[in-house]
């Protein structure tokens, strides 16, 4: 009897009544635990289905479809997730995920409309189909995100790669897995990076400090480059930069001018300054003399009287004295220039060049000068940097806060990485679940055969069918506790090597494998001996039997051979297919290189591969021929003159075996139409 201790009691007569009862979603005080969350989600889901059930009590299949619908992950969801990331991380995440989200949304729209879909399509058919096709094309390379599969496509098989991507992308279950993965990432991110004002303040300050540091680095580089161009030595540049960092712009500028002057090769600046002062004094004296001359001219033009005459005389004297002073100043200036030229051995042009260099160096004292502005800006940044460094240091003195911020940064990195790997993770989970369902469907077939044999009283056939199932279960069995299919790599490797060894002579290796499992001798002579043992026990030979026993043994052998043929015809291909599916799943699930080497228990030698290819070549061709998807893919490849290599044929075969790409129960007319349009468009890339 089944264990019903925890299982709900079934009351079929109450089904309708139960669908109409009010469902109340449980609520929990405080932070929800994982178990509580699962219960709430389950309850909400049940509520939605019951609501649907009350609206369409007859359409049970719709309700099961509803259970599979996980909703959508919108661009708004992505925005809210991106807001938790740094700008660079967010940019990377958006580039990879945005086209996929648009594609998922279009696929979902085509999928969930169901009965309303015809009306919907009637109004917006062109738009929906166009959008879906465009998005499928722009969705990017799905497999780029999945290194295991990516490696399998190196080479010139991009056309097949497109088909494989298409098979995966349009499978509603993959779409659901991707939505679930994105939601999981979003929820985890919002949970880990929930509002923490203190941590956010430290993050903001650190971010600003980082930005200012970056600016300061750029500004420092500009100043350094300009000073190097003026041949300022490295130690002087360092000294100037240190002055900038102290925050004293005036001092930094004056040091810069001095350094540039020194670097320009200007000799005896004070002497040149004195020369400039002489020139300035000459100019001042000449201006004063001109003013005196103007006054004299005015006095001479005016009414003449004794006072005027006295003024004219005084002005004449002053002009004469001024002229004499100017001559002295010019003489002094000329002497100074001559002295300079003879002292420093330069000619007139060289002297003028020295003066010009000095003027240029001093031009940067002008606040509008670009170097002056750069130094002022860097000084101001330096002050801000000091302030921010102080603030960060104060905040970071709180160890617990620092740890929280470090954890948040770590969570951000994980979030960014998870978003980048979301597609690969979803493909992995999707293939895992397809494999689990594939094994279960094979189990159903073999269990049914066992039941049929039992009911017909075919004891040997029933037992042999059971043995075959048990042998296949050894490759991997679903563990209801962990909710996972647990693959046994050792047993899978052992069986596949046996298959290769049994195929070496060109015979059907899987037939030998199955015969060994059910203890059936394929060799007629040995089979007779085995029957003799079965009849009379160990040590019995066929020749030792009586005539009647021999006749019975022959009849039994005939029956057993027929039973074995029935068993093998019903489950032989399944055995081979399931073994290889297990082989690929075990490799996919555990190894970096999907079809690579270094696989330990699952590694095959080159010869073993050849043997398996010779064994499976026909099986693969049959699978490709019997599948609509397979036919279309192969036809398209043929038309392009592409012959896919063996590894890729195997990959396509495994996807078709697992039923990947089959639109299945969710293929509403709109989805089918959309997929058709998408496929036509898809074949162009």
């Amino acid at each position, binding site marked *: 009897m089944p*264990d019903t201790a925890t299982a709900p009691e079934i009351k079929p007569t109450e089904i309708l009544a139960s669908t109409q009862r009010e469902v109340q979603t449980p609520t929990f005080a405080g932070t929800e635990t994982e178990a509580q969350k699962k219960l709430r*989600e389950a309850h909400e889901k049940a509520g939605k289905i*019951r609501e649907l059930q009350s609206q369409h009590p007859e359409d*049970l*299949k719709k309700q*099961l*479809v509803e*259970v599979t619908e996980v909703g959508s992950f919108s661009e708004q969801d992505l925005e809210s997730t991106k807001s938790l990331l740094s700008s660079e991380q967010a940019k990377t995440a958006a580039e990879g995920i945005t086209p996929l989200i648009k594609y998922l949304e279009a696929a979902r729209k085509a999928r969930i409309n169901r009965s309303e879909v015809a009306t919907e399509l009637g109004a917006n058919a062109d738009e929906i189909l166009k959008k879906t096709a465009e998005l499928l094309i722009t969705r990017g390379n799905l497999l780029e995100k999945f290194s295991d599969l990516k490696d399998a496509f190196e080479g010139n098989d991009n056309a097949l790669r497109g088909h494989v991507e298409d098979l995966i992308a349009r499978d509603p279950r993959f779409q659901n897995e991707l939505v679930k993965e994105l939601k999981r990432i979003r929820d985890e991110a919002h949970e880990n990076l929930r509002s923490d004002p203190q941590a956010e303040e430290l993050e903001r300050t650190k971010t600003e400090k980082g930005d200012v540091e970056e600016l300061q680095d750029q500004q420092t580089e500009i100043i350094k480059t300009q000073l190097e161009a003026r041949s300022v030595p490295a130690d002087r540049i360092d000294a100037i930069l240190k002055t900038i960092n102290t925050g004293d712009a005036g001092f930094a500028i004056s040091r810069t001018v001095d350094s540039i002057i020194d670097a320009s090769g200007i000799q005896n600046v004070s002497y040149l300054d004195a020369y400039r002062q002489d020139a300035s004094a000459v100019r001042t004296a000449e201006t004063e003399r001109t003013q005196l001359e103007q006054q004299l001219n005015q006095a001479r033009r005016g009414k003449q009287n004794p006072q005027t005459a006295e003024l004219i005389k005084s002005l004449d004297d002053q002009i004469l004295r001024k002229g004499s002073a100017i001559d002295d100043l010019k003489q002094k200036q000329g002497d100074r220039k001559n002295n300079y030229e003879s002292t420093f051995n330069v000619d007139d042009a060289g002297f003028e060049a020295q003066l010009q260099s000095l003027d240029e160096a001093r031009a940067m004292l002008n606040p509008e000068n670009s170097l002056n502005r750069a130094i002022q800006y860097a000084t101001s940044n330096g002050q801000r940097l000091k302030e921010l460094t102080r603030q960060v240091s104060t905040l970071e003195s709180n160890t617990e806060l620092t740890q929280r911020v470090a954890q948040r940064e770590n969570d951000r990195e994980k979030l960014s990485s998870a978003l980048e790997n979301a597609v690969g993770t979803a493909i992995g989970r999707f293939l895992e679940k397809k494999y689990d369902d594939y094994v279960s469907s094979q189990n159903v077939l073999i269990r049914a055969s066992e039941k049929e044999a039992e009911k017909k009283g075919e004891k040997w056939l029933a037992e042999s069918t059971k043995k075959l199932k048990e042998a296949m279960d050894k490759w991997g069995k679903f563990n209801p506790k962990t909710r996972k299919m647990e693959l046994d790599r050792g047993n899978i490797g052992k069986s596949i090597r046996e298959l290769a060894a049994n195929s070496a002579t060109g015979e059907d290796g899987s037939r030998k494998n199955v015969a060994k499992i059910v203890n059936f001798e394929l060799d007629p002579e040995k089979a007779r001996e085995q029957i003799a043992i079965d009849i009379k026990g160990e040590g019995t030979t066929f020749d030792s039997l009586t005539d009647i026993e021999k006749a019975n043994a022959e009849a039994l052998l005939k029956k057993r051979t027929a039973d074995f043929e029935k068993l093998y015809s019903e489950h032989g291909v399944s055995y081979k297919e399931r073994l290889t599916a297990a082989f690929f799943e075990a490799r996919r699930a555990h190894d970096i290189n999907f079809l690579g080497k270094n696989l330990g228990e699952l590694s095959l030698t080159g010869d073993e591969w050849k043997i398996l290819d010779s064994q499976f070549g026909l099986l693969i061709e049959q699978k490709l021929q019997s599948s609509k998807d397979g036919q279309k893919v192969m036809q398209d490849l043929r038309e392009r003159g592409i012959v896919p290599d063996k590894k890729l044929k195997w990959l396509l075969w495994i996807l078709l075996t697992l039923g990947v790409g089959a639109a299945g129960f969710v293929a509403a007319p709109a989805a089918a139409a959309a997929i058709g349009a998408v496929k036509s468009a898809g074949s162009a890339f």
Partner: protein
Amino acid sequence: MDSNGQITEELKNKVYNKIMDVMLTSLENGTLTAEESEDASYFILEMIDSLPSKNHLDAFLEELSERWECFKPLLQPQHEEELKASDEQNIQNIKEEINQLT
């Protein structure tokens, strides 16, 4: 089920009904999570319409309950349930008769 062991539409609907009821009750009492119900639904939907015989249906229910324990009650043979319902009806009839006598 017809006389050849084929699954009738009526039986299929009945199984659908029971599966839905178990699933919803299990979702509500927490013995099945939303994610598990999704996985189970994919399997059910992909299998149930392609089951050719009663043996396959039984095998399917066995596999279903091995993967998701909440479906174990579905393994109770159909006729047992019918017998139980019949017994309950008989008891009810007898009770009514006794009541009429008293």
